[in-house]
């Protein structure tokens, strides 16, 4: 096997002193699928930025096709035959598929012409689509096609530019299991045609399924490069985190009691005024975790916002214990022992320009316990913050550190600490582990199960199907604003079963929970 790309001893120290790469080695053979894994902040994206010429390495060498290279920008890298599919799609929504693919390299009518040659463009793209079997309508506007197809457009984009080495940055994060399977089939087909793939991910199941070799990065250093066949997920995760990680969340069977939250025929609209919830009915009982599974954008966000009072319900009812939540203010709802971990900790979950301590009391500062007359009781707040940081393992110098400077996992722990410190009877956790590293995920999962066992009702919304399956006792599948199925989470339940409903292919429902009323 010939070496296609070799990055040796890459160091990158940012001007502010942060060392993102501290000696990374990466060797990629021609024609292989090479997985690159590591926790958040391990230095994967910095490494890719260096490879693409977006950042200059502090030291280290890059050899591509046997020659030393140093790219000044993505254009150089593209010219040399590299292509990157970004985690967040780099597409202009109102342009057509073909316009997006040729963007920046449009065929023109003659070398000096100012005009687009749309006939040649279309022929080229139809041929491209046929050659690689990446089916997508070239004339459709990108905003109208599903996520899986958008990703194909991204892949076609790099192929159009003649890339031989394709980097996929967490490509499955937004896909359903079925779409993931299709993507993997496409990747395998590409490798069959002699392409080389670097596959960045933190899902070890995918590493095992698709890669030939895997490089593990931890804290800016290459820990190991392994042949996938000779390793196992446990070993990889041990290398990534530096200790044993439990994959299965340990939990006893649920002992559900009385319903805490009863949603009946709930309707609401999204920000543009289009219907987002079309008659949701769902019960969540004390002592159980109900997970919402669904492709993002099917009403999950609106559902959580409607329950927590952030969004007005157009009709329907939400009963919490014996009170109606529809029409109540956010403050009122929060005062009723309802904890809410918002999906976006950066904008909704925490105030980045405030300290950890301030973030921890955001919900409690009216509490007489933290006040002295009309003023805040700094001493009490400090004590409280210290205790919380201890219990929830928030790693920071002290409680006066700005929340904005914390890593994703630590910030999420602050948010979770705040929401759990009020001993909620209902916990709504929206994407509780998004962008959080494996160690913190384990911790957060354990906390959620602990609350369940303590008798709280938990509503879990997550784009990670594996997370929903690991934590939930029952799984409600949402599709286009409706609950299309409620499934008991038995060991026989597979991702494919759920994916079937997530795609709107079937219905198995009509909550028989009216009886609970």
């Amino acid at each position, binding site marked *: 096997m010939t070496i296609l790309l070799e990055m040796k001893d890459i160091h990158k120290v940012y001007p502010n002193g942060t060392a993102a790469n501290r000696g990374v080695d990466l060797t990629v053979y021609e024609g292989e699928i090479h997985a690159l894994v590591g926790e958040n902040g391990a230095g994967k994206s910095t490494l890719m930025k260096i490879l693409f010429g977006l950042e200059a390495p502090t030291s280290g060498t890059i050899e591509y096709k046997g020659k030393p290279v140093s790219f000044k920008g*993505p254009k150089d890298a*593209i010219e040399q035959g590299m292509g990157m599919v970004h985690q967040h799609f780099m597409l*202009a*929504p109102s342009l057509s598929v073909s316009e997006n693919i040729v*963007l*920046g390299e449009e065929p023109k009518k003659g070398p000096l012409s*100012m005009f687009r040659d749309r006939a040649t463009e279309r022929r080229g793209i139809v041929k491209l689509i046929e050659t690689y079997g990446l089916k997508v309508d070239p004339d459709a506007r990108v905003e109208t096609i599903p996520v899986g197809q958008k990703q194909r457009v991204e892949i076609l984009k790099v192929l159009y530019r003649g890339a031989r080495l394709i980097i996929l940055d967490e490509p499955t994060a937004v896909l359903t299991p079925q779409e993931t399977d299709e993507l993997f089939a496409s990747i395998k087909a590409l490798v069959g045609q002699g392409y080389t793939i670097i596959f960045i991910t933190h899902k070890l199941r995918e590493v095992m399924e698709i890669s030939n070799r895997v490089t593990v990065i931890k804290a800016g250093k290459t820990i190991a490069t392994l042949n996938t066949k000779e390793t196992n997920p446990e070993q990889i995760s041990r290398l990534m985190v530096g200790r044993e990680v439990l994959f299965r969340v340990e939990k006893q069977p649920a002992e559900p009691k009385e319903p805490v939250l009863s949603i009946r025929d709930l309707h609401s609209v999204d920000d543009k*005024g289009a*219907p987002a919830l079309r008659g949701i009915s769902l019960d969540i009982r004390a002592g159980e975790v109900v997970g919402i599974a669904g492709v993002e954008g099917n009403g999950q966000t609106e559902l959580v916002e409607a329950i927590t009072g952030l969004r007005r319900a157009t009709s329907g009812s939400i009963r919490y214990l014996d009170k109606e939540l529809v029409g109540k203010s956010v403050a009122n709802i929060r005062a009723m022992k309802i904890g809410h971990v918002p999906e976006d900790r950066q904008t909704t979950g925490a105030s980045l320009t405030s300290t950890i301590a301030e973030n921890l009391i955001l919900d409690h500062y009216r509490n007489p316990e933290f006040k002295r007359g009309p003023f805040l009781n700094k001493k009490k707040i400090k004590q409280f913050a210290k205790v919380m940081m201890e219990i929830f393992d928030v790693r920071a110098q002290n409680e006066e550190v700005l929340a904005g400077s914390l890593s994703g996992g630590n910030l999420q722990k602050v948010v979770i600490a705040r929401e759990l410190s009020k001993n909620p009877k209902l916990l709504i956790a929206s994407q509780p582990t998004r962008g959080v590293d494996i160690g913190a995920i384990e911790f957060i999962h354990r906390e959620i199960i602990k609350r369940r066992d303590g008798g709280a009702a938990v509503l879990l919304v997550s784009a990670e199907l594996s997370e929903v399956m690991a934590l939930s006792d029952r799984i409600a599948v949402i599709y286009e604003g409706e609950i299309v199925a409620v499934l008991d989470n038995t060991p026989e339940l597979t991702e494919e079963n759920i994916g079937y409903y997530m795609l709107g292919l079937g219905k198995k429902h009509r909550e028989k929970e009216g009886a609970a009323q």
Partner: protein
Amino acid sequence: MWQALWTQIADLTLIVVLLRLMTPILLSALGGLISDIAGVINIGLEGLMLLSAFTSIAVGAATDSWVIGTIAGVAASVAMCYVMGFFSIKLKVDIIIAGFAVNIFGSGFTVFLMSKIYGLTGNYSPENLNPIPNVVIPGIQDIPVLGKLLSGHNLMVWISLIAVVFCFVLLYRTPYGVHLRSVGEAPAAAKSLGIPVGRVQYSALAWSGVFSGLAGAYMSMGMTSMFVKDMTAGTGFLALAVVLLGNRNPVGIFFGSLIFGLASAVTTIVQTTPGSQVPSQFIQMIPYVVTIVALVIFAVRKKRKLLTQAS
């Protein structure tokens, strides 16, 4: 009043007035469109037009040439756009604030220059102005209906109509147009493909400068033969409304401008009709009322479209 209006419609005067009044709205709306599409919406159209209106008539009168005057006006407007681009693209000042600054500057600076150069405060009307000519088409001008429809319009009226086609071709038939659209919608995507986002945005602002420059030159040297303090009277803002109303495409903008031109034309005709019983203040409100009504209709329609798409 109705009678007068009817006779003017019947003898096509309404159309002539309409074309006259539509031109500045159409030109500046096209300028606003290109900047909006590239994600640097230029709300300084008003100030740019004033700047160009003053510069072009001052230079035009001094050189006795409308061509040099118009070029000077456009140049002043484009130069201002580059300043705006420097602040908003390079120094990252909010584009709306930069646009407001241009509006205030355009209004204040032209009055300042008028008083410094000519010692005038209200308006400047040079006696020996050689204005932008009307295009009289020999042969056709004598044909009854066709003559009035096609002949005798100001050159800038024709330029504005050609500009619609030009913008359409530019935006949809050239790679540059696709780049403009991608830069406005997904700057990160454009950048990742090696499209120079900043430079494309500068160029978009420059285009808005060109079109508002033409509009300004027409206002002082074609539609009238003078510069009046704040003579644009909100045309730049009407143009921004037209950009939205025209669904952000050149053809839509043409029809949007027609509506506003019509409103202005009706206003003018009713105002100049002797014996009108409606207070002139009410008549003068028409274009602005039309703006509000049009935008409301636009919003309602858009919402309805969204709702039908979703269900």
